[in-house]
């Protein structure tokens, strides 16, 4: 059991990943022949993924890299045009920059907020009382309701004159904004929607909380630590690998944020391009304006941005992510 909390559950790459793997512990067979056998068997076992990787990831990946240097309307064969797509994107396409701006702004606001709300919900729901399964299901609901329904309910809730939110604000004599029709407020409306759906990540935090050994709390209680202190000193540090994982996934998902923006703006990215998210613009370019070459170039830039940001987050993990011990 002790070993368990030394193994952070969501710990991608460096520290954990089989540096000297568990098989090292076996240490029975050390000769060359068995080494070769291990390699062979190891590769045999991972071969399904390896083949899938080559066929469904690496090959399309290279293909799309090529497409990003072409003019390709998906109907006629692609035509090589060198760096033209990238040149246009960086120097001649204000919408590209606008969409990048919208996405980054949203990421900076929504990702931390969703993180906090998700952790809060998990802490709240990590109790053993009667009916907790019902509450967990309720909070999980928003992440399984079809997007069409989610979006329309938000159009209704955020409706400026008759919507629930502005009605509540009106009680306090505050004139609510016109939310989805005001370019300054659309982003916040979407953030609002994201927070509402934070229950999806709650499940993963709950799992993380289950991983924290009880004796740590018992020891803290004996030392007379308050609940807040316990959360601060035990729960959050122990949960940090999970938070880290959710942060990474949150950032990745934000840069691919599409459906909600598409539905709320009828696919236009309006008003005034305030919901023109990167992925939505990429979709417009590829499928509406039939410019797959440009779309591929945008997809590649997106990939590089995600890799860059993820790397930065990984670099930062030493400072705040605790892997037990």
């Amino acid at each position: 059991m002790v070993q368990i909390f030394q193994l952070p559950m969501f710990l991608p790459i460096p520290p954990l990943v089989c540096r000297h793997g568990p098989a090292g512990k076996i240490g029975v067979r050390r000769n060359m022949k068995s080494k070769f056998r291990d390699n062979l068997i190891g590769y045999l076992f991972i071969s399904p993924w390896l083949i899938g990787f080559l066929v469904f990831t690496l090959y399309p990946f290279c293909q799309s890299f090529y497409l990003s240097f072409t003019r390709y309307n998906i109907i006629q064969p692609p035509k090589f045009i060198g760096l033209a797509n990238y040149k246009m994107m960086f120097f001649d396409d204000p919408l590209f920059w606008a969409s990048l701006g919208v996405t980054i702004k949203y990421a900076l606001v929504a990702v931390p907020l969703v993180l906090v709300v998700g952790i809060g919900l998990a802490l709240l729901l990590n109790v053993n009382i009667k009916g907790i399964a019902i509450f967990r299901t309720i909070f999980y609901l928003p992440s399984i309701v079809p997007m069409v329904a989610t979006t329309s309910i938000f159009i209704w809730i955020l409706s400026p004159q008759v919507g629930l939110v502005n009605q509540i604000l009106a009680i306090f004599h505050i004139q609510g904004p016109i939310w989805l029709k005001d370019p300054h407020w659309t982003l916040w409306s979407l953030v609002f929607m994201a927070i509402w759906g934070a229950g999806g990540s709650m499940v993963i935090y709950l799992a993380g909380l289950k991983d924290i050994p009880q004796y740590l709390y018992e020891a803290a209680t004996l030392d007379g630590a308050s609940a807040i202190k316990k959360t601060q000193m035990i729960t959050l540090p122990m949960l940090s690998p999970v938070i880290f994982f959710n942060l990474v996934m949150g950032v990745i998902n934000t840069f691919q944020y599409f459906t909600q923006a598409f539905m709320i703006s009828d696919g236009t990215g309006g008003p005034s391009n305030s919901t023109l998210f990167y992925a939505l613009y990429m979709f417009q370019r590829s499928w509406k304006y039939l410019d797959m070459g440009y779309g591929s170039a945008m997809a590649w830039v997106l990939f590089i941005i995600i890799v860059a940001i993820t790397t930065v987050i990984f670099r930062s993990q030493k400072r705040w992510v605790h892997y037990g011990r």
Partner: protein
Amino acid sequence: MTSNESAIKQRQKVFLYALLIILSIPPLMPLIWMVSTSLKNDAQIYTTGGTSTSGFSLSSLWPKPFVWNNYPEALERMSFMVYLRNTLFICFVTVLGSVGSSAVVAYGFGRINFKFSSFWFALMLATMALPGQVTMIPIFSLFRSLGWYGTYLPLLVPAFFGSPFFIFLLTQFFKTLPSEFAESAKVDGASDWTIFTRLILPLSKPALATCALFAFLGAWNDFLGPLLYLSDSRKYTLAYGLQQFVGNHYMNWMQLMAASMMFIAPIVILFFFAQKTFIQGIATTGGK
């Protein structure tokens, strides 16, 4: 969780319930609204818009009269049962394929020490960061050239090559299993495959169930796959079939909501019953 006085505990409990109930309102709103809309008729939808500023009122949520007919009509209009059958078939095969293949791969990563294993593992994790849009068009061309367009194969076959997320989960899980069993089995001459199927798999039920649930939810909700690859409306899945209610200049709001209710009901029930296993499975607390 902590040992407190029982009176305080009682008060805390009441407070906790109150808090939970209040916080439950926002996530329940859409469900209430969906149910309400699914039981209305055209005319009632029209009046909810209203012309007065008093506008929003809870009473508008109460259908008058109840129109139960939307449910059977929605069932009929979108051939619900046929789509359900298609969806269940796809779910079944993808769950089997992705969990099975992921477990095999995870055993390789988690329990065998082979050359460059950490490199491949890192690479696999990195592919999770890859936006799907990058590979969408080439993969489509690939399946088309295989002649798989219009069949279920593009939705099913990739599942058999493992999913990075599941492989990751299972690898972590397999590592927590004690190695003594395996070692003694090896001494007895058992092959890795025997150890995998006879020892590891039976011990990993919670983790496997979690992956299965994730896979099921993924396949159940998949919209893009059917959009890209299915052309015959008799082969549609539920998630895609829901779009049948969204048309040009017209949307059958009531039937859409009725169908959506029937669409989410199974997963709500599934989650409700399985959430304990689900959460336990993610939390690699296995090794019972």
